[in-house]
């Protein structure tokens, strides 16, 4: 297992770390200065000595500082421990996966309630006794990573370090010649597989310095640029460089964790004269493919040595030496990403086959969001969905309240109630996975088979957008809605700030008849999936005016065969209006 000589600079196997590193090599840099190879060897030896005296076998690593993380990782390797890398450090999330580890190594205190778990903070200041370090057998070092599965609970992914070693050598063959004389800066954490490989293990194996701390802001990314620097990054940052001015160039930029918008790739080209190398992969599979995006349709290039075909649902089926053999069926691994093939080694991505969405680089399971929402005593039902507001993708939720939830919202008001809901979810979900927009309904709209009406859910949010643009609201507040087959019953409260009340009439505001008909058509489209425009009306009666703030019930019934929509508005005052509307298909 000597140094590989087939690229410009050599690359060690993780098995040889940290022993093979030169004492005077610059290993990492950060707020605390430069860390050398000899310091790293001493720190690993020291912690290994401590860990060898512990009987706990599975060790969770929770670190902000990548150098401290590297010390912990190699000390665990050299003391025969099983490595556990939680996907995030939210207290509730750590508690939820606590059956996967016996002890915890950390740098910043974690406030999870883990009474049965030994916890050690780094750096430790114990005696300087150091352990003898011998060559590792990477295949025997077990590693557990976590990702959001479609089942709604964090999914543990089991690997061994040998798989990562194979991938590092492959990365080095592809791009190692660009690494000569370079240092590696990063905006991504070492806690996920992409960061673990690109910002930490690969630089270590290639004996190139890596940053102990992450860059967080665009200004920092611009300031760090230098012809001898690599940037390991993600779309979250790269798509926000558009307003920056070019300073210096990076030698090489990588992006992974989610789709990179073409505009972001173009911005990088303008600023750095370089398009980011995008890596497509997952925790389960490691790297799958790469590309430099020049146009939206730039295909992905499979890693050399991988094989690929498509399942019946267009899901990618992969043969890869980065995937544990036990996860494969006859050597093939089924992913949840859909694609179209272009030849044998190239493809374009089409989306996911499950209920998992990617927000920036985080995989968010909608099922998991819903599970945590409905676990709260304030809620009865919850439906989570991704919404794109033009600037970013975020999670929205349609919820129904329990009696205690209704009491709470009456006490707090909607704004504070939203904040309280978000705060309750914080200990279980990543910040980007916490819903930021809520719609409260009496029941989640479903079709006659009990399936949720996705379009109706989206509609609940899109109308709000229109309202915002006009600064006054055009649709009334929905207090309650109930859909059964081709009929719907909606309780509404038309507030005084509705556009339709303005100037109608100046002395006595009432809801125009034409608005009542318009609402009937809009709600029918949202809840009963009618698809047509106004084509006439019959037996229309306006009996009692609807005034601002009144609570009224709109009943809708759709006769598809006749293409007629029957509606009525009523309240404790009696019938306000009723009639039938003829719809004709949209041209």
């Amino acid at each position, binding site marked *: 297992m000597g140094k590989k000589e087939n690229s410009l600079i050599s690359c060690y196997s993780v098995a040889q770390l940290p022993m093979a590193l030169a004492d005077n090599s610059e290993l990492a840099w950060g707020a605390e200065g430069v860390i050398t190879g000899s310091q790293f060897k001493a720190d690993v030896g020291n912690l290994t000595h401590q860990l060898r005296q512990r009987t706990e076998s599975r060790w969770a690593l929770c670190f902000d500082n990548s150098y401290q993380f590297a010390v912990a990782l190699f000390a665990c390797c050299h003391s025969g421990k099983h490595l556990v890398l939680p996907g995030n450090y939210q207290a509730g999330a750590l508690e939820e996966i606590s059956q996967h580890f016996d002890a915890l190594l950390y740098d910043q205190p974690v406030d999870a309630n883990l009474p049965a778990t030994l916890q050690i903070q780094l750096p430790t200041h114990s005696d300087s006794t150091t352990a003898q370090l011998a060559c590792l057998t990477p295949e025997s070092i077990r590693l557990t990573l976590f990702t959001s599965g479609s089942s709604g609970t964090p999914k543990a992914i089991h690997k061994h370090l040998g798989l990562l070693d194979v991938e590092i050598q492959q990365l080095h063959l592809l791009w190692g010649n660009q690494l000569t004389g370079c240092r590696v800066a990063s905006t991504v954490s070492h806690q996920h597989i992409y960061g673990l490989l690109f910002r930490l293990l690969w630089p270590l194996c290639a004996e190139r310095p890596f940053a102990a701390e992450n860059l967080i802001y665009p*200004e920092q990314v*611009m300031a760090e640029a230098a012809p001898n620097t690599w940037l390991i990054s993600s779309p979250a940052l790269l798509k926000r460089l558009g307003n920056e001015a070019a300073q210096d160039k990076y030698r090489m930029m990588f992006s992974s964790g989610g789709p990179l918008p073409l505009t972001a790739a173009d911005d990088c080209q303008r600023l750095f004269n370089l398009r980011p190398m995008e890596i497509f992969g997952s925790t389960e599979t490691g790297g799958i493919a790469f590309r430099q995006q020049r146009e939206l349709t730039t295909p992905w290039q499979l890693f050399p040595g991988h094989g690929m075909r498509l399942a019946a649902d267009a899901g990618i089926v992969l043969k890869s030496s980065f995937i544990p053999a036990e996860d494969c069926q006859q050597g093939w691994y089924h992913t949840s990403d859909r694609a179209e093939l272009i030849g044998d080694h190239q493809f374009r991505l089409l989306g996911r086959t499950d209920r998992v969405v990617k927000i920036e680089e985080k995989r968010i399971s909608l099922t998991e969001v819903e599970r945590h929402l409905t676990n709260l005593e304030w809620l009865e039902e919850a439906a989570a969905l991704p919404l794109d507001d033009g600037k*970013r993708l975020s999670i929205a939720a349609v919820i129904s309240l329990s009696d205690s939830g209704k009491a709470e919202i009456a006490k707090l008001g909607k*704004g504070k109630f939203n904040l309280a809901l978000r705060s309750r979810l*914080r200990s279980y979900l990543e910040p980007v996975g*916490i819903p930021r927009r809520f719609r409260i309904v009496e029941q989640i709209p479903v079709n006659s088979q009990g399936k949720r009406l996705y379009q109706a859910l989206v509609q609940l949010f899109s109308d709000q957008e229109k309202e915002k643009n006009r600064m006054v609201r055009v649709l009334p507040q929905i207090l309650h809605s109930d859909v059964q087959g081709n009929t719907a019953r909606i309780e509404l409260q038309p507030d005084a700030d509705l556009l339709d009340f303005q100037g109608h009439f100046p002395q006595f505001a009432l809801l125009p008849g034409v608005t009542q008909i318009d609402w009937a058509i809009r709600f029918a489209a949202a809840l009963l999936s009618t698809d047509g425009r106004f084509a006439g009306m019959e037996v229309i009666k306006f009996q009692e005016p609807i005034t601002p703030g009144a609570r009224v019930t709109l009943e809708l019934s759709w006769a598809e065969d006749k293409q007629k929509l029957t509606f009525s508005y009523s309240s404790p005052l009696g019938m306000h209006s009723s009639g039938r509307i003829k719809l004709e298909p949209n041209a």
Partner: protein
Amino acid sequence: METLHNEIKALIIEALNLEDIQVEDIETEAPLFGDGLGLDSIDALELGLALKKQYNIVIDADDTKTREHFASVASLANYITENKA
């Protein structure tokens, strides 16, 4: 200072599209990230851009205290007052 506090709160609501949240729902001393408002890492980036636009402040790339400046409305107000270009 209170005017600036309310201005920043309104900017946060506007820039981050926090619907249903009013200026008075945001507490001046409460954390913006983690507890309190519960903003995420993307919000931090968007907020940085919005502040730069509104107040013409430049975030110092070498400033290791960036996180502290963004801790609450109060700390942002101090930072803006000190750095207004």
